[in-house]
Structure formats: C-alpha cells, structure tokens
C-alpha cells in the first residue's frame, strides 16, 4: 500500500514506472477492435493487458492493432496457462516476440470460474522474477500468498474482488483490507468489478489501482462505460486520500476505564 499523497501529484509507481491513471484495462470481450480502441482512449488508462493467446502476428487485423503506439504499456498475460511451466513458457515466448517484459501472471487450471492456482502462481513468479520479468500476479485474495509473492520479487499483487467476469464486486473485501494494510508493493484489485461504484469502493479501501475488463467490454457503450470508470477510480482515490471518516459508535462504558488515575 502506498502512503496517501497530495491528490494533484498522486502518481502510482510500479517497478519504477509512474502511472497517472489507476485504471488498468483488460482487452477481452470487446465487440470490435474499434470499440476497444475507443474505450482505451476514454478510460485514460496507461496499461492494458493482452492475452498472449489472442496475439496473432499473421492475421490481417490483430488485437495489438487496437492499441495506441505510445503512452500505454502492454501487459502480456499468461491466461490459458494451467501450471507454472506453461506460464513461464508463455512469458518467454512474449519476450522472444519482442513484447514488453511486464507479465500479468495468470494461471487458472479450472475453466468454470477461472480461479487462480496459488501454488503454481508462486512457483512461476519465483522463476519469472529471477529471469528479469516484471511480474504482476493475479491471485485469490489471500494475504499470506500476497506476502510470499512480494518476497519473491513481484512488482504488484493483483487479488481478485470476486471471480473473473462475475460482476459481483468486492466479495473479498475483508481480505482485501488486510492485503492493502500489509503490502509493500502496489495492490491492484483485479476481477469481479462490475460497476463504477465497485471500482470506487476498491479505491476508497486504499487499493492502488483496479483492473477492469468485462464491465467495460460488455457494456452497451464500452467507451462511455470506460469514461465512467475513469471518473469512479479518480473519485475513490481522492476520497481515500482525503481521509474517510469512520462510522459513529454508540457511547459505552458504565464504569470509567481511567478511574485508576484519580
């Protein structure tokens, strides 16, 4: 978790690289490359993640064609990998293809909920960090796993709010609070964020950024939804920096606790 800072000079720094936008975008599920490009522009994002399995340099129109050439960092993801070995292979393929060495590490062995495998994720993270990659792992909201990933050198942790594509928001809120409190690297809430209000909630909790895909990619108007998320992320962040007041508590104690001082 980063310490609160002045809202006007509030950059997120990941592995030494500053980001003005705290909204990261996934690129699946968009109806067209054109709508993806419009959503990227409207979101103000500076990092988008692309599944290596979607990249086809031989196609006439590839997903990479939708990406603006400058200012937006491409985060290759290993989606589709079942285990550490596959994820490491995909990351190295991406590097060999000349893509950036920033990797969203995503290992989801079961196809229904696409929940991340914690054991394989930690193994792959260790290998990739040692191999010089900048690793951003997608994980369950497990505070101890997040500390272990931080220890092997991951640049962020990206715990899920709820499972991918579920639009259920921060079902893991209590665990996210612990992760945010404990983490020494930025915390990006990834997956499950289905509405701008949920993105704002994550930012109010103190998350450093959110990664959104389904809610924007499947919206009636993806670009308009991207703009709404942009505002929500900024509002939530500013709310966090301003210092949210806690709930009022009922007054208590019948006998004074400081009576021994008299």
């Amino acid at each position, binding site marked *: 978790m980063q*310490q*609160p800072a002045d809202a006007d000079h509030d950059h997120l720094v990941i592995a030494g690289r500053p980001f003005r936008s705290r909204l990261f975008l996934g690129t699946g599920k968009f109806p067209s490359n054109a709508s993806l490009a419009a959503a990227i522009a409207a979101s103000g994002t500076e990092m988008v993640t692309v599944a290596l399995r979607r990249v086809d340099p031989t196609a006439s129109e590839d997903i990479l064609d939708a990406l603006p050439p400058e200012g937006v960092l491409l985060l290759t993801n290993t989606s589709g990998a079942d285990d550490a070995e596959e994820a490491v292979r995909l990351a190295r393929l991406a590097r060999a293809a000349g893509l950036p060495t920033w990797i969203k590490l995503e290992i989801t062995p079961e196809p229904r909920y696409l929940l991340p495998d914690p054991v394989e994720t930690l193994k792959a993270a260790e290998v990739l960090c040692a191999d010089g990659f900048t690793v951003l792992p997608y994980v369950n909201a497990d505070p101890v796993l997040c*500390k272990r990933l931080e220890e092997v050198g991951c640049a962020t942790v990206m715990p899920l709010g709820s499972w991918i594509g579920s639009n259920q928001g921060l079902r893991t809120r209590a665990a996210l*609070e612990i992760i945010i*409190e*404990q983490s*020494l690297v930025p915390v990006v809430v990834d997956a499950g964020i289905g509405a701008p209000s949920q993105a704002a909630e994550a930012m109010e909790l*103190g998350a450093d950024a959110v990664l959104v895909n389904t809610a924007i990619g499947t919206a009636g108007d993806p670009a308009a939804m991207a703009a709404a998320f942009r505002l929500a992320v900024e509002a939530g962040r500013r709310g966090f920096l301003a*210092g949210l*007041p*806690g*709930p*009022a*508590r009922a*007054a*208590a*104690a019948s006998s*004074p*606790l*400081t*009576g*021994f*001082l008299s």
Partner: protein
Amino acid sequence: MATVPVILEPRAEELPPESAAADVMAFLDGGLDRLLERAGGATAADVDRSVRASRRGLDDLAVLLSAPAADRLEDLAAAAHELTVRRFGRVVRLFAPLYLSNVCASTCTYCGFSAENEIARRTLSVDEVGAEARALRHRGFRHLLLVSGEHARIVSKDYLVECVRAVAAEVPSVSVEVQVWDTPTYRRLVDAGCEGLVVYQETYDRRTYAATHLRGKKRNYPWRLAAPDRGAAAGMRHLGVGALLGLHDDWRADALTVGAHAQALVRRWWRCQVTVSLPRLRPAAGGFEPARPVDDRELVQLVCALRLVLPDVGLSLSTRESPEMRDGLARLGVTQMSAGSHTEPGGYAAESEAEPQFEISDTRSPAEVASALRRAGYDPVWMDTIGPRRG
C-alpha cells in the same frame, strides 16, 4: 574521551535499504516534523475522526497523542479497551527478566549499570543462570527475558549462547535484551533456543542519543536501530522495541517514532510478532534526572493511542510502574507484563549483593500479580509459545 565516536548517520553495510531501520531513518528525516505539527494543530474534530476511524495510520497516532485528545482520555480508553479485548482477549502474558550481568563497558547517563557508576558488579556463571531459571520456573514462569549490561568480553557471544542453552533447558520461551549483535550471532542464539529479541533504541532523537550515550559501542545509533532487522533475518519470532520515556524532552516525538518503527517492523517482517515497551525512567544509580518526565495521564494516553493505531502489536509493561497503573493499563492495551522482578544479577535463587539496574515500583509477587489480574477478569497466561524456530 570517548573510545568510540558517536555515529548517527548510517553506513550502507549497517543499514540495509530494505529494512525497518531504513524506514525509521526516512521517517526521522521526513515524516516526523510533519506529524509533530499535526499533533500541535489537532482539533477536537480531528480527535473525533481518529477515534471513530475504522483503520488508523501514523497521522491518527499524532492526533491521538495531541493535547485535545488528552481531554478525551475516557473515549480513547473505551475504544482501546474494546479493540484489545477483540484482538487479544482478556489475557495478559507474564514474563520475568533474568539479569545475567551488570558489568558494562558503556557510559549511558540514565542507566544504573553505566560504566562510571561505582556499584557492586557481578556476572552469573552459566550454572547460576540455570539455577535462576529453575527458581523462576518454580514460580510459574515459562517466558524469561535474559538481560545484561554490555561487555563484549565478559558478556561474550559464547557466554550468551551458553546462557540461552541453559535457560532453554528450563523453560520453553527465552528472549534476550543484551548488547546488539550481528546476524550470525543472532542465528547462534536462535539455534541455542532463543525466540525473541528486545532492543530499546532508548531515544530515537539523534541529538539526545548522542548526549546520553557517552562511551561504548552503543554510540552507534544506526547499528542499534537495525538490530531488530538482523534478529528477524536470523529467525527470531518475537521483536521488541521501545523508547525510554523521559529521556528526550519531547515524549511525543519518541512515541511517534517508536510507533513508526513498530509499524515498519510489522510490514517488513510479517512473520514476527512485534511488541512495544513503554518504560518510564526510574530512579537509578547515577542520579539521572529525566529531561521531561511523562506523567500518568500521558502514559495512559500513549498506551491507548498505540493500541488504536497498531491493533496487532503487543504492548509490554514492566514493574517500573505501580500496581495501580499496571492493573489499570492491562484493560487498555497492555498485553504482557513482567512480575516479581529483580533487576540485579542473581536474586531469584538466592539473595544478591549486586546493584539493580533501576528501582522497581510494583513489588508484588508473581502470584499476587496473577491474582490481581484474575480479580479484574483477566487470565494471567504463563505459557504461550511453541518455542524457537528450528533449522
């Protein structure tokens, strides 16, 4: 006249960049002044917000230590009590200090063991240390803290390793509060059966530190500051830090910094249990006068504020405090206490002629302390450990 020049600025090998000590140095050079201003300018509304907040940070610590917060002491106490019961239960762990030696090569102006003081000196043999541990075990203790003056030849690494081994044969939980060492030495202590390391920085204010530590190895401020990091790296399960309240003339500055240190240790060494001690200066040989005594209300405010901002951190209180203060503070956030203490080497197994480090105030026996806690609805816990890390 000093044998070792005072060292206040760190050398890289003494202060690794990714350490709690480095975090504290950055805090001293940056955040502290801002937080002191925050405390100085805090309003009643600020206090209200910090008391009600569901999560609190060092900004809240500054507010909760402020003068307007002192006017709300009962509210602070209620919140601290509720949080302590929720996190720790109605439980206080008891431990005893076991003094190995009052021989000391350092001159520290406030300490009864200070090298210049003409006092009766004594270093226990390893067999005597074992006998002390046995006597304490018979009184119920299972957690012992080995304490010593600083003398690298008389209270050597090898001696300490042997003492830890002798005490670990008697009780399951051994911690040390001795001169600071390097990581390999701490590893030897862990291997011998030590699970905890206590190092008070005494004061975090570098000017006061230099003025009160006149001779000896303790003059190296950053090396001492980074000792908990080295202990954690060596496998210590428990880390204790503290400031000697009254040494620095601005107790809030030391309170804020010890809070920042504990917070940094929790974050850097997430496997360790961190405990903060809040000793107030007591009369001792040498006749040192506190620069600014911390009064009872201020100590209560400090306990409550630290509990509210660091809900998972242990708070430790010694027999320096009166029975009334100790019984009262157990309800507000203190989680462990020494009891029936002798602060001179020897004295548990037999009478000792050696000079104590300081006078104690709570002279009740361990059994009396335990029954007072029980009467207040608290469980005095003697045993709470699975022992040191192995291998």
